[in-house]
């Protein structure tokens, strides 16, 4: 399992991030290649979610640079908005627009941000909802759906923008156990289709079978990076060994 092409898509260089006096990202260097699936794991509070959120600058950084597709991330305004539209994001708590139907959630971005014709956007939205297996829920409101269905709708919403990369911030952590599988299936399909993905998760099974690379984070630092087979069999760092012994023994 190696990336299809070695061309870097996301490049973080010396990124530091503070929340007040808390140093949540410490001198982070990370390159994600086109088509690569990177899974970020680590104990809570290690900065995984923050790492995910700085990539499209939902969180500003204090120092360092982030480049996406060859361009440095703009700090503010329309250029930043345009760049964000090329990076799909899926949240732990789904964050579907509560006042819109599932279909409207998926068409809103293409119509309002990309100025696509609503008929075309609708057609593609229905195809995407079909792809994630909830075409029959298109006219319902988010609150009427199960967590797994909401998360799949959120993935369809992100895909509707035809993103160059997808960021997943603990996409299954808020789900009932029986719904985790349906969301991971959609993500595995995406990975197989060559989507560039950064996935923050506690799903070690997904990391094992879908990731090209596993990154272990602790205390705001990238402690260890390796191919999944190697990482899970022979973690090099003490922190990773300790973490794995706690999550894999159950």
């Amino acid at each position, binding site marked *: 399992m190696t990336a299809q092409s070695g061309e870097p898509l996301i490049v973080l260089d010396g990124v530091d991030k503070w929340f007040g006096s808390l140093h949540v990202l410490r001198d982070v260097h990370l390159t994600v290649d086109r088509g690569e699936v990177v899974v970020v794991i680590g104990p809570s509070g290690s900065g995984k979610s923050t790492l995910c959120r700085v990539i*499209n600058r*939902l969180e500003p950084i204090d120092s360092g640079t982030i480049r996406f597709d060859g361009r440095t991330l703009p700090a503010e*305004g*329309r250029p930043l*908005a*345009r*760049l*964000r*539209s*090329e*990076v*799909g*994001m899926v*949240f732990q*708590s*789904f*964050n*579907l*627009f*509560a*006042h819109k139907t599932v279909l409207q959630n998926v068409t*809103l*971005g293409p119509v*309002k*941000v990309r100025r696509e014709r609503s008929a075309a956007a609708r057609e593609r939205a229905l195809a995407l909802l079909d792809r994630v297996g909830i075409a029959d829920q298109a006219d319902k*409101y988010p*609150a*009427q759906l199960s967590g797994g269905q909401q998360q799949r709708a*959120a993935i369809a*919403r*992100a895909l509707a*923008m035809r993103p160059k990369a997808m960021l997943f911030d603990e996409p299954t952590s808020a789900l009932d156990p029986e719904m985790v599988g349906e969301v991971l299936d959609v993500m595995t399909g995406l990975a197989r289709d060559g989507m560039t993905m950064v996935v923050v998760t506690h799903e070690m099974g997904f990391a094992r079978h879908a990731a090209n690379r596993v990154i272990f984070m602790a205390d705001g630092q990238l402690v260890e990076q390796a191919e999944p087979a190697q990482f899970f069999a022979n973690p090099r760092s003490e922190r990773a060994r300790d973490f794995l012994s706690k999550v894999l023994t159950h």
Partner: protein
Amino acid sequence: MHVFSDPANRAVYLSSFLLILKLTGAAGVIALVFGVVLAAMRVSPVPVLRGFGTAWVNVFRNTPLTLIIFFCYFGLFVNLGVTYSDDDIDLNNFWLGVTGLAAYTAAFVCETVRSGINTVPAGQADAARALGMTFGQTLRLVVLPQATRSVVAPFGSILIALAKNATIVGTIGVLESASVMRQLINDNGDAVIPIFLVFAGTFVALLVPTGYLFGWLAKRLAVRR
């Protein structure tokens, strides 16, 4: 009830309440639109806009409405020459009154909308920004529709207060209900209590259903989470 059996008295009674409704309607629409704009300013990242919104709320929310209405007449009209109608003084005074009522009420609408914005989970704005929406789009398409729908019931209270506040426009010569009531009481000293009860009762009859209507709307429009 000899007072209201006189057709002339009935006519001024009716036209006085019609004026209340017109003042409330016109000022209400303007205050709603402008209040939402003020709220958008107060949460915007532009310091000048934020400062303007804050200043507006602090000035108009904390000034007695009577003073604001007086200012509209003596300040805007008499001193600064702001005129809405040259040949119809009643129409001119009506719109001066609407100006004062709207400026005052917009401050309350703004603060209500702002508290509505706080009911919208931060994740909603995160998702909108992640899709590539600008600040304006995020506010207009995602945050404000949810925020305003969560404050429909308080909007009802603001509208009810506005209808009663409209009586203050009587102080600049608009023949609304309170000034007509005073006139009728002056002319009919033997029927003070009945006249008062009719005018008060009319307000109650108009505003109690308004309260229930907004309660019903609030339930209907609530965003399910």
